[in-house]
């Protein structure tokens, strides 16, 4: 149809260390869920910021389109639950397909990183 007219999904643009590569946020979310188990949106966003050593300052809102995308692909599922401080919140957890996806994406990333590393070495 006319995807061209949709406002581009706000990529995880705002970072301290420059633009985030497309697809990286998805993998970060998946890894976070793998490490922490079921978690709500705020928890995931904070965890990503902390893990990156605050090198990455997300616009936390951008996590939600990413969560929606992952859910639509069947990699995560969402359930309503209660947060630590007793508030109703939506909790996300990995699905079987999501676990498989982590393995695949990790492989991809390692290949890309290795390739990039070789370029960076040469240019020095």
């Amino acid at each position: 149809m006319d995807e061209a007219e949709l406002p581009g999904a706000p990529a995880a643009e705002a970072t301290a260390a420059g633009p985030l590569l497309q697809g990286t946020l998805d993998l970060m979310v998946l890894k976070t869920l793998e490490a922490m188990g079921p978690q709500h949106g705020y928890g995931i966003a904070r965890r990503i910021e902390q893990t990156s050593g605050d090198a990455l300052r997300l616009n936390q809102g951008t996590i939600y389109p990413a969560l929606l995308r992952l859910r639509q692909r069947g990699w995560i599922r969402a359930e309503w639950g209660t947060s630590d401080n007793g508030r109703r919140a939506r909790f996300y957890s990995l699905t079987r397909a999501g676990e498989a996806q982590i393995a695949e994406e990790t492989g991809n990333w390692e290949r890309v990183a290795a390739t990039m590393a070789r370029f960076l070495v040469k240019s020095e």
Partner: protein
Amino acid sequence: MRSLWGTVREWASRVAAAFGWRDREMDEELAAHLAIAEEEHLRRGMSPEEARQAALREFGGVTQVRETMRLGEGLPFLENLRRDFGYALRQMRKSPGFTATVIGTLALGIGAAAAMFTVVDHVLLQPAPYRDAGRLVAISEVNPSQPGGAQWPLPWLDIEQWREQSRSFEQIAYSGGGLDGRNFLVHHGTAMEVSAEGVSSNLFSMLGVDPTLGRGFLTNTGSAGASRNNGTIVLSYDVWKQALGGDRNILGKPVQINNKVWTVIGVMPAGFRYPADTYGTPQVWTAIELGKQDQSRSNDANGYTVLGRLRPGVTLEAARAEMAALQKRMGQEWPADLRQAHSHVQLERYTGTLVDKDVRKALLALLAAAGVLWLIASLNVTNLLLARGTARAREMAMRRALGASRWRIVRQMMVEGLALSMAAGALGIGLAAASVKLLAHEISQSVPLPVPARPDSWILLALVGLTVTSALLSTAWPALVTARAPLEPALKQGGLQSGQSRRHHRMRGVLVALEVAMSLTLLMGCGLLLRTIYALEHVPLGFRTDHIVVAHLDIPGYRYAHRDLTTELYGPILERVQHLHGVQSAGLMTTVPLEHGFNMWLEMDVKGRTVKSMMKAATPGVKNVFGFPMAAGRFFDADDTPASQPVVVVNEAFAREYSPDKHDPASILGTKLIGTQRNKKNPAYTQVIGILQDVHQGSIASPSYPEVEVCLTQTTPNSTFYTVLDEIAMDLAVRTREPEGVVVPEIRDVLRQASPELAGTKITTMDQVVEDSYGSQRLAAHLLEIFGGSALLLCIAGLYGLLAYVVNQRTRELGVRIALGAPRANVLWLVMRQAGAMLLAGVAVGCGMALASGHLAQGFLYGVKAHDGWTLAAAAVLLFVSGMLAAYLPARRAAGVDPMEALRSE
């Protein structure tokens, strides 16, 4: 792998989201996020205000995220469609005048087409409310040397053999007999007339319709006589609802019909009727009980109507071949003198027997006419939208400049068109139902099947089709034109589209000419029908119709069993009516001329010759009521009593056909015809005492048939014809000085006092009977008046709209011309010439179309040819003159342009 269920769930969720049903969940999630973040910040020692600010800052744009989510979560396509509809609705509200014009125009077209389709659907597409009705076949016996008409009787013995030996049919069922005379269902002191049909026990299952309550008849296992259906009855839904108040506990209870009590075993579903062409009177069904008269092949045997259901896959041709072979053998079992008459079988599709060819053709012609009106309406809307497209050129150009794709613009305009035509469709179905209701009387006079106004699934489907096609037809072109228009000139302030708009005008001119052409065909049809009606109204009827009130009596024959209707019911009624104030004369007659209803045909042997004629009973008074002129002899008078010589009068057609001296019709006077008594020794032959001048009996357009009238006052229960002449149909005709409104209640009073069943008697006027006799022409004329009139209006509006627009666009040019000295008359002429060209082109094409399609109306016409030049010329002149009048207004405005104003305004 995603499971199928997962996919379904996701799509369901997306559709839900597209309509905003997921918004609340999303909002709650985002609010929870902000609240948790805020608490976190509070715990780290921020002030409440700071905490809130920080949470919002870290989150980024809430609105932006929401929008992204909504688009991502739902279906972008649906979401956009929803927006387009919203936008379309706003546009419609912004220009109510334009919106009303478009919706009104389209609703007219859609309504006309849907109304005609309703009739066609009930009469041609699904004439018989049975399962898989296409496989039902009517079976009859025919005599190849006497073409036309089935042989009577078709006895049970033949049916039984077909059932046993034929392989083509799943089931063969039959009907006939039923209860004699008129039947009244008597319940709690009220009487309702019902029609009772005898049916074989398998008829309902053969038709594939189960009772909605209870069961149908049981199959008789043993030999005849040991019937399991004795005294049981199945009711139609209407009888059950109207006479018994829809009592769900009716099963097993007794109902009284005439003097007999029956046990109700079932109620058929709403809308079920059998035979399919039953009109009006609610029905009940009883099981046929076989008797002695079913055990022979002779003229005394009971005869039945036979229907079979073909096995799946068996063609009609195959069944015909099989049955022909069967009948060759079976025919031998008839006695020698009847063998030839029953030697062949005729198989016809049941649905095909219900509607004759002329009606079919006529309905299709009217449907085509409605279709043409719909097309005109759609073209007119195309024209309106083209004009509007030009007016909105700047808006559209702006949107494209801001990044909207062409497809987006096209879609936007198509959605607007769809919204308009959906509104029109909703209005149109209402119009259709209303017009079917309004024309119900005329429809009932011209088609053989009932046409309910309630739309069914076929009609709704047709409506959706019409709506969508209207939208496509009227918006596709304007949308493409707008989307393809170059941006720059439209955006430039005051830049008028020169080359583009010239071509544009020409296209619109072609549309108007097309409308004119199609309108001319409709007007031509309308003109032909009006001339037909005129011709019919001016055919001399041979009798008077003014100041006559006619009552079709609902004769309660059962009350008069073993008594004499003539002296105990009819005599007193006539006596009392004659003494009502203002009544000049009154008479009784089996059926008044031109009435569609009961006709009795008589076949008798007169000196070795078969005489076939219509037979009626009449009292002396009818001659004065109708003023029937005599060709010779006298009519009945007060001296004709049961004690005197039985007499009859015949009409000229009868005399011409059957008088002893071929060259002198009057020689029939004094001859003896038909015995009136069952007594073989003393049959009491009637004597012909008079010859009536011919009148049209069936319809004005058909010639007179031979007719014999017997004197009603001479018939007694002993007469051969008492049952048919006294008990089945009787019309009371009254000539009165008083207006109809005064005399009808008085007559009704007399009837009610005579017998309660007569209270419901239909009372009308003779003028109405005559009017109804050309029902189909009248219906066609009414419809074509509406279609033609609407078409004329639409195309005048189209023409006016186009010229007004053109003049508006050319104001500046016209101003310059006038400033340079062009006489105003020339400017006027300029515009009129343009209108004339469109009209002439349309009329020329229209004449061709009208002549080519004229034969479609043929079936309706009387006294005028389908390609009548005068009618065509009149229609063309009407169209041309009204078109020129419509053009005069914009032309005068063009001539009145003030050059200073015109030049300054740009």
